[in-house]
């Protein structure tokens, strides 16, 4: 019989074993990379076809091309028109989606195992025999132009888009995936067709498949559907990103706002194995979860916000340190002051307790990162994005647990720069400008809703 003792937290039981899902690479000629994970507990399959052709490769005068291409591609294929094609997926109960980001475009579905082959057939039809009708193109183009108008209503969208624009300046990461209005207006169906022929068809995909399938059959099915594809070599080199010299404040005037959306951060060195683990721990302590310094201060102590979060956003060829929150208008400057204060403070290091909390949290949470089919697929996709080995996760915890207090401190000094940050506020000018001036943190500049100079 166990005795009731409420006064302190009970000790854990013996830890249950966890084995990582086995990541296998199927060897198929003429195709880039096929990663397969057998997962048996449910009769479902998750499939992704990913191309490293994100919006950052949009030509300088055609920003929004990759995204619009993704919208048009599945509007009919083979003998099926747009609606018939979508109906086929629905009849199978398959959730199909195309997602374009700055780094990649992915075609994914979640299907029942019994409908995997039929879903694979449909996705192949989309990739190889798109209809590209003028009518479908015009409709999708009009949709994206309307979305472009609508995002002006949302403080969050404005903040995210203008923050990237200010952070990346003239680099191709600076432009929103949704594109630039004037460019979108000029895009024609011919642009889409040229893109398909010259870029899309020549790019090499990687495939991620998670589910309970026979490996041999799977290899055959994929081989007949997706090979061969010729190499596409002309991926552009990144323009250099200079980074901020000193802290500056920018604001977007959104009249009538009752809150201010705040983004604070700067360019950071690219994801690399050397400091990735100490950055992960550092951010966990600083603003990566509920019990972080930022959240405990700005939410649980000051009550300025519903929540505040920080992250190192790792793109393929760049990384950004980003703090984001929304606060009531009257507390705009107070909140910024506290955030800058926390940035200064963490550069002095973290405590032993904080580090051991972060290590414990990350290590013990590890098994739950592999619960759903989608989680596994997304973990693999980040391995591929950052050119990591297939056994990456095997050593992950060992590397996390090796990080020392000193390393975290050095990482903070090197990667968190309160004096070289961009501070962006989206809010009502009348309510915030005087507050911002009193902060005396740097030059204050008003910008347009996409971070553009006024």
């Amino acid at each position, binding site marked *: 019989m166990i005795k009731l003792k409420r006064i302190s937290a009970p000790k*854990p039981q013996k830890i249950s074993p966890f084995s990582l899902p086995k990541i296998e690479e199927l060897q198929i000629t003429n195709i880039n990379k096929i990663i397969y994970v057998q997962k048996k507990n449910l009769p479902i399959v998750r499939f992704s076809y990913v191309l490293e052709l994100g919006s950052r490769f949009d030509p300088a005068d055609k920003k929004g091309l990759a995204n619009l291409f993704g919208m048009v591609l599945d509007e009919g294929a083979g003998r099926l028109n747009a*609606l018939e094609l979508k109906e086929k997926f629905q009849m199978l*109960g398959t959730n199909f989606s195309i997602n374009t980001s700055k780094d990649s475009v992915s075609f994914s579905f979640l299907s029942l195992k019994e409908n995997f082959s039929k879903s694979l057939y449909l996705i192949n039809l989309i990739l190889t025999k798109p209809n590209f009708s003028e009518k479908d193109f015009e409709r999708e183009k009009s949709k994206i132009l309307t979305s472009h108008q609508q995002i002006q*209503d949302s403080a969050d969208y404005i903040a995210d888009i203008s923050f990237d624009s200010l952070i990346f300046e003239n680099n191709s990461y600076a432009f929103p995936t949704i594109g630039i209005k004037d460019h979108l207006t000029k895009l024609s169906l011919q642009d889409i067709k040229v893109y398909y022929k010259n870029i899309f068809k020549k790019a090499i995909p990687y495939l991620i498949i998670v589910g309970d399938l026979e490996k041999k059959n799977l290899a055959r099915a994929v081989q007949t559907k997706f090979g061969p594809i010729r190499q596409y070599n002309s991926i552009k080199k990144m323009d250099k990103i200079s980074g901020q010299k000193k802290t500056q404040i920018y604001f977007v005037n959104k009249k009538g706002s*009752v809150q201010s959306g705040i983004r604070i951060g700067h360019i950071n060195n690219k994801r690399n194995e050397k400091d990735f683990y100490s950055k992960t721990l550092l951010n966990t302590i600083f603003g990566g979860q509920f*019990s972080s310094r930022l959240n*405990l201060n700005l939410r649980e102590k000051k009550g300025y916000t519903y929540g505040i979060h920080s992250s190192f956003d790792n793109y393929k060829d760049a990384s950004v340190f980003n703090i984001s929150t929304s606060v009531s208008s009257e507390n705009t400057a107070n909140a910024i002051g506290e955030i800058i204060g926390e940035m200064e403070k963490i550069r002095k290091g973290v405590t032993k307790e904080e580090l051991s909390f972060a290590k414990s949290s*990350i290590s013990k949470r590890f098994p*739950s990162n592999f619960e759903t089919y989608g989680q596994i697929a997304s973990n693999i996709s980040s391995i591929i994005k950052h050119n990591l080995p297939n056994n990456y996760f095997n050593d992950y915890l060992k590397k996390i647990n090796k990080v020392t207090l000193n390393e975290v401190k050095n990482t903070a000094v090197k990667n968190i720069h309160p004096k070289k940050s961009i501070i962006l506020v989206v809010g009502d000018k009348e309510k915030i400008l005087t507050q911002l001036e009193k902060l005396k943190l740097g030059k204050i500049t008003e910008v347009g809703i996409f971070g553009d100079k006024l």
Partner: protein
Amino acid sequence: MDLLNIDYEKYTLNNGLNVILYQKKNLPLVAVNIWYKVGSANEVKGKTGIAHLFEHMMFQGSKHVPKEKHFKFIQEAGGTLNASTSFDRTNYYEKLPSNYLELALWLESDRMGFFLPVLDKIKLENQREVVSNERLQRYDNQPYGLAWETIITNLFPQNHPYSWPTIGFMEDIKSYSLYDVSNFFKSYYSPSNACLVIAGNFETDKAKELIELYFSEIKRTDTKQTQSFKNFKLKENIFIHKKEKVQLERIYLVWPTNKIFSKDDAQIDVLGDILAGSKTARLNEQLVHKLEIAQDIQAFQISGNFGGAFLISATVKPNINPEKVKSEIFKSINKLIDKGSTEKELLKSKNGIKSQFIYSLQNLDTMADQLNNYNFYLNEPNYFSFDLNRYSSVTEKGLLNVAEKYLLNNHLELRISPEQ
């Protein structure tokens, strides 16, 4: 379908706490999920939002758990946690490595049994600010963010428990006193008013022993009951027009429906799916795809213990007359009522629903929550197959019946137009 047949054990402690155990051992994880039978429907006018604010207060520590430690304990153990409040209920949940089950039971039992001794004004003032900011962030400062509040306050009769928003009105959020909070706890947070679900990797005997240990000494108290409310119809159409800082006009059309899991409930859900559940649904095909007069369109039902509502909303494309959009929506509805649905569109909808049921089994916390959901409304946790069957047995005739029965009644229309 066997997959959807959940093997569970359900029992009640002496103090009235319901317990549901469901073993699933594929991962070393355990989900703990408690539903308290209290939501914003139990509030009174002038104190709206207190059920939700109370949910926040439950994370502010209890007699043996210092403020801020609730989150810390769970996160340090590698767990994730949160809570949510709706019209009908409040749930608290965490998912942890299975060897930390006892930690979760200690924390949940401490705030169930020992919340009041450490409640204080500083905590209340802090969370009042947090919740005010939550309201600003999620509603006041979002485009069309107050539409839902406008709809329910005008659709449901005065004093109907759904006639105010769960987040609460700002002036009410500013008004709660410590007495209100402690009184709320005493009125609703009795073990006899809650159900604890444990799902995942655990040993049954051990789990039962721990539950008994941590929860059985908590005394039950009398809980307040909220009167049930009769179904109602609108006496006439209601039209509300608002101007806001948005780019595009949006139309909302809303009809009162019935309680959750009542006779017509599943049919109405399918009706929503057939009208606007996908890009090939009727309204999408007609208004978005063919005519290109709407940017997006939705149709769905929300329903609970005290009633329900069916809602269609459409965002009008630039330079299109909203009247045209409205009349096309009604044309589609009338066509459905006139000619009925096709076999194919019904099948399409059912296949989608069936797959979603299976996909939803991936997450342990989703399953734990669903067990509580079925138990709360139907007193039967293992309702997955029956629930799916409600949808797969919908007929063309049944669909036609509910479309006629509800959509021909008076409705509420809300228009939100751009200010300029």
